[in-house]
């Protein structure tokens, strides 16, 4: 069975819009500006101006985006978006204010592509609100190609708009399936944006709270909330800061939020930044000198003109802090609150993928049309379509349960049997393979494909359907063989993904649930928060994390800020801070060794991959992971990702012939049925406290309080200075989705190391039902096969004895 990646691949997969997991052995690193000195130079066609581009006057303004603030609006959800393979599509949403939509706008596109992409037949199409705005050949392998078109007036609407990037790429020379992984086009975040043709306009005029989504993001996809609270260092302000941060993140539906808490107004405001003034009227007056007229004399939440040049400022002010808190609760938090017993229908992914991922709380059948996959035909070797589905935080069906894909599709008789197949990936892991082995082509009519729920997890899951179709012409690969020819595969949007009823019970510790849906904080009436110290750094970090969790949970958390662990009581707790600042005794309660407080900050800076300022590092890390480094959760620390693989190799080559035979059988079982003799071992119960490995910058750790059965989650940075930056890094979509298990240690920019929980406990999340309990038991048995085997044996013996006894008593004696 092919299994190109393991759970780590899954992390990469969710990055969705940010980068693409590419499970092929050979590939280039697209982040390098030029693809290196090639042995021979295939002359890249000179960057001819796009034929559609009208001779717009704004063309000149394009390369000078820096000086005036707000002459452009970034569009990408990340520093770059990479489209890969022979055809790829990305769609997401962005928001505009009334004024922006009415302005004269240019669409600027900047992209670069792989050297091997054949420009003559490769095209990049950009659609805005479904209408084709730009279509250019993919012909810029040596440098970033910029192009700009004026957008038709009326194409953009106030509020939500969608943008889609479609690419069709063909290899210059190669016809293999592997070569399709070498095809990529990277859309650059800094150069892809809406720019205003009239520099005089002051576009970001925010009128009401409903305009919040229009704040958008910067060129790396990050929305920065600058909360200016003069009394931030006082305990009284903390809960208001957290409430504001969460409410704004939720109402703005931003993709990635970084919260900065300051006491002073920032000097310069960049695009994608929202400044919030938070404090009593007195404090605000101190900040601004005079308050705007509308805010004078009463509690106020609304946009006012900033005293500095730039965008409007959200002012939240009242007479006193209690009054402010009530005001925030009423005007900001309440509209985005949701009762804990109400399931959402979708999970918001609009900032990087439309349509939103449907939230599956129960048995559900989803047509591909609902998942955003249209009917399509492919003439290429590899066609991949993506869909997102979201699972609840108490999803517990990794070991038991199968979704079924009812495929409607067809393949032509050109498709060579043997090497052609359909593969379903879940979060980057192969979940099902269907060979296309008929020589005469075939038609699938609601053809069922079983997809084990094994690689699903709480929160957003990405499912790929990949059709690998080789033809005879690919084997000879004559001149022009890579050009689009006859269609090989068709996929119909009537295909249905049917998710069965699955087991729902909370398990803790499980960081993946926190990351996915904020569980269990999402369902707790109150959350206790303990910070290392009450200062701006800690507040910023905590607010960033809370905003992120609130977005996952799709509801604001009610946070009680505590000074220490003593008052936590019967609430789930969040701990944020630097290791050295942590009160004594706090870390062990989250599963981290106490001495970490002293030893960890003392360690020298290890060789750490510094985060790429341009954000391309996200992509690099994905590529690195996919280049065959197969990592599995293990306890030895973050520096030996291939330990398991090496151990397996040694294990397989040692021992006598009998032992080797035994090992071979075990490995075959592992490959084929995902069973192993190691699974027969009962998990050890001895708790061990974690000590971070070399180079670890931040640890997310979770444990269950033995008394209250509540979950404690700690986000601990190595040093005070790096707390804020580390936290903003882990809330980036790729890293955030990588959180799992009991402990996740983040090392460098993207590397995360997961330690799975040795023992977990269950948390009832729904009213008791026998059907659910059966599923829970089945899943538990499936993941503890040793116990299952014993139970089966016992049941057989009991059945035998029972039958024997029953027959002895019933009927006639013979």
């Amino acid at each position, binding site marked *: 069975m092919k299994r190109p990646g393991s759970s780590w691949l899954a992390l990469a997969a969710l990055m969705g819009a940010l980068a693409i997991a590419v499970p092929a052995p050979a590939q280039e690193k697209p982040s390098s500006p030029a693809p290196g000195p090639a042995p021979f130079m295939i002359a890249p066609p000179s960057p001819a101006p796009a034929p559609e581009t009208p001779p717009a006057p704004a063309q000149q303004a394009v390369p000078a985006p820096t000086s005036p603030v707000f002459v452009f609006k970034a569009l990408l959800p990340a520093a770059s978006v990479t489209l890969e393979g022979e055809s790829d599509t990305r769609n997401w949403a962005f928001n505009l204010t009334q004024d922006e939509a009415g302005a004269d706008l240019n669409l600027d596109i900047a992209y670069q592509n792989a050297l091997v992409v054949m420009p003559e037949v490769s095209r990049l199409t950009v659609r805005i609100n479904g209408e084709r705005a730009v279509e250019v050949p993919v012909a810029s392998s040596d440098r970033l190609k910029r192009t700009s078109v004026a957008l038709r007036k009326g194409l953009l609407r106030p509020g939500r708009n969608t943008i889609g990037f479609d690419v069709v790429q063909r290899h210059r020379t190669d016809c293999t399936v592997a070569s399709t992984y070498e095809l990529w086009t990277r859309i650059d975040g800094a150069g892809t944006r809406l720019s205003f043709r009239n520099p005089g306009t002051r576009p970001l005029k925010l009128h009401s709270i409903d305009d919040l989504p229009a704040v958008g993001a910067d060129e790396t996809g990050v929305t920065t909330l600058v909360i200016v609270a003069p009394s931030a260092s006082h305990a009284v302000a903390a809960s208001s800061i957290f409430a504001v941060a969460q409410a704004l993140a939720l109402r703005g539906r931003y993709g990635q939020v970084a919260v900065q808490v300051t006491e002073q107004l920032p000097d310069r405001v960049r695009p994608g930044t929202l400044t919030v003034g938070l404090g009593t009227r007195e404090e605000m007056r101190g900040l601004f000198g005079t308050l705007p007229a509308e805010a004078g004399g009463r509690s106020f939440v609304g946009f006012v003109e900033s005293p500095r040049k730039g965008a409007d400022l959200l002012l939240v002010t009242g007479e006193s802090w209690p009054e402010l808190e009530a005001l925030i609760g009423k005007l900001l938090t309440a509209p985005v609150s949701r009762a804990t017993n109400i399931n959402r229908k979708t999970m918001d992914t609009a900032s990087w993928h439309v349509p939103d991922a449907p939230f599956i709380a129960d048995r559900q059948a989803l047509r591909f049309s609902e998942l955003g996959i249209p009917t399509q035909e492919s003439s290429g070797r590899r066609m991949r379509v993506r869909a997102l589905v979201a699972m609840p935080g108490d999803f517990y069906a990794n070991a038991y349960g199968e979704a079924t894909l009812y495929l409607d599709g067809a393949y032509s008789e050109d498709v060579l*049997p*043997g*090497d052609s197949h359909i593969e379903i990936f879940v979060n980057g892991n192969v979940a099902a393979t269907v*060979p296309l*082995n008929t020589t005469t082509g075939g038609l699938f009519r609601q053809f069922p494909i079983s997809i084990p729920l094994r690689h699903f997890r709480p929160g957003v899951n990405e499912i790929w359907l990949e059709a690998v179709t080789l033809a005879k012409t690919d084997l000879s690969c004559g001149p022009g063989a890579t050009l689009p020819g006859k269609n090989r595969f068709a996929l119909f949007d009537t295909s249905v993904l049917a998710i069965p009823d699955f087991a729902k019970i909370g398990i803790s510790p499980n960081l993946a649930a926190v990351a996915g849906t904020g569980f269990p904080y999402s369902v707790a009436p109150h959350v206790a928060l303990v910070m290392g110290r009450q200062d701006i750094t800690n507040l910023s970090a905590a607010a960033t994390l809370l905003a992120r969790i609130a977005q996952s949970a799709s509801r604001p958390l009610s946070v009680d800020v505590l000074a220490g662990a003593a008052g936590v009581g019967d609430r789930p707790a969040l701990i944020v801070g630097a290791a050295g600042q942590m009160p004594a005794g706090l870390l062990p309660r989250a599963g981290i060794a106490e001495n970490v407080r002293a030893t960890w900050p003392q360690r020298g800076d290890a060789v750490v991959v510094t985060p790429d300022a341009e954000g391309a590092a996200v992509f690099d890390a994905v590529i690195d992971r996919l280049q065959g480094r197969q990592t599995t959760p293990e306890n030895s620390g973050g520096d030996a990702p291939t330990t398991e693989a090496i151990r397996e190799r040694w294990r397989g080559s040692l021992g006598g012939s009998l032992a080797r035979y035994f090992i071979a059988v075990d490995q075959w079982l592992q490959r*084929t*049925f995902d069973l192993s003799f190691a699974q027969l071992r009962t998990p050890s119960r001895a708790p061990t406290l974690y000590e971070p490995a070399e180079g670890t910058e931040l640890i997310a750790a979770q444990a269950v309080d033995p008394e209250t059965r509540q979950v404690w989650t700690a986000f601990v940075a190595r040093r005070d200075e790096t707390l804020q930056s580390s936290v903003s890094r882990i809330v980036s979509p790729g890293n955030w989705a990588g959180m799992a298990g009991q402990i996740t240690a983040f090392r460098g920019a993207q590397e995360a190391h997961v330690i799975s929980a040795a023992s977990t406990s269950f948390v009832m999340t729904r009213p008791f039902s026998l059907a659910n309990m059966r599923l829970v038991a089945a899943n538990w048995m499936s993941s503890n096969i040793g116990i299952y085997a014993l139970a089966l044996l016992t049941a057989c013996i009991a059945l035998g004895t029972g039958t024997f006894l029953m*027959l002895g008593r019933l*009927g*006639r004696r013979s």
Partner: protein
Amino acid sequence: MCDGLGVTYLTRERNISAKAGNLNNGIAHSDGELIVVFDADHAPARSFLTETIGYFGKDPKLFLVQTPHFFINPDPLERNLQTFKTMPSENEMFYGIIQRGLDKWDSSFFCGSAAILRRTALQTTKGFSGRSITEDAETAITLHASGWHSVYVDKPLIAGLQPATFTSFIGQRSRWAQGMMQILLYHRPMFKRGLSLPQRLCYSSSALFWLFPFARMIFLVAPLFYLFFGLEIFTASGPEFIAYVLSYMVVNLMMQNYLYGRFRWPWISELYEFIQSVYLLPAVISVLLNPSKPTFKVTAKNESLETRRVSELGQPFFIIFAVLSLGVAATYWRIITEPYNADTTLVVGLWNILNLLMAGCALGVVSERPEGRAARRFAVKRRGEITIDGLRAPIVTENVSVDGIAIRVMSRDFDKVPVGSLAQASFETTIDMPKGTLPLRVTRLNPDEKGLLMGGRYEPSAPLHSRIIADLAFSDAKNWSEFQKARRHNPGVIYGTLRFLRLAIFQTSRGISYLFGLYRLSRPASRPGAAE
């Protein structure tokens, strides 16, 4: 002869309601409280009544005491595969396991013969039921439903003949299958009022068993669809097959072997079902379509087999075998041309080969061997005296059958007696009965170190002769039990499977050689002395 034995022989002008009608006619012309039913080819042992009749005294609501049918000749499968002496008979599964099990739930049913019924019970149903062609089971279900009980005595107390040729064997089984289907349709045992839940289950199980041809035929045909047409009936890879199907088969074989390994050896059930399915499937379908159509046909059991030949019903098996062989060829072709499908093809191909082995065995079954001795002989030690041409000598019987006897003559003078001469023999008897001599035709003479072993064939002419034969052959039912016991051993799954494999290969070649008339060449292989 009937007068001589004090027996009334009844016959009817028209055969209305077949056997049930005959039995009802017999009831009408008799007045005993209990009615014993024997088939014409079944002979009871002396102890038959003493072993059975007591149960009627114990339970006034008892309507039936059934005893097993013990056959002294092999069925066609046993004869043609030469397993009669060594392997438990097919019906031992029924009488040794199933009837005993049914009896536990008070639902052992009437099997048409070797049973005693209570007249008062039969009167409530106006005699034997004649609606279905298996009147026996139908009568039993009716009486069970009205609160009567039955008892099964697991001792062979009668000896009988079973169908000797494959054709008559199939005829008999078709009747059973159709009759049980009729009961299923007319009586709906699962929902029949008056039956207890276990009885409902028991009768349903007995009737539904006869639907096996459907499953068998699907099992036979399904792999061919893939091998010839590429149609995937179910999709499974090689490892999946190993994990799910093979483990099931192994567990199944082990369970079967554990539960009734002594009575039924591995794969033999499959073989019996396979050979019947080909003909029973149309029979069952026809009865399902038209339940009232089938009529009772008497099973011929006394046909003699003089020559080697292929049964007239053998043709389909040769066709099946040929098609399955083509399937093997298709497997090979598929593996060569579609290597990417090799593991599926291999799985299906192996399945097909299993069918082929079964079909090969069936070829052996339909290739009829000539019958050696007509009836089974049992060791009986009895003193007596023989007279040939005035020469007298004391004798001891060695073994006895219903038509012949072997005796040891305690005299040197008999060496010169010619084969074919008529002898008069008298024996000591086990009961008080008129003395007399039994005419014997000498068939062989084997002098050995202990004396002379003489074989003879009875030549009965008077009723008394028949009584003497009966006293010799049927006085001791223990003989039969011991014969059965000797065959009842459990070979185990592995040995049983290997044995079946050997059998399959040998019988395949025998069947094919019969088809081409090559049996003369195969004579050395078929060990002439081993024919029963």
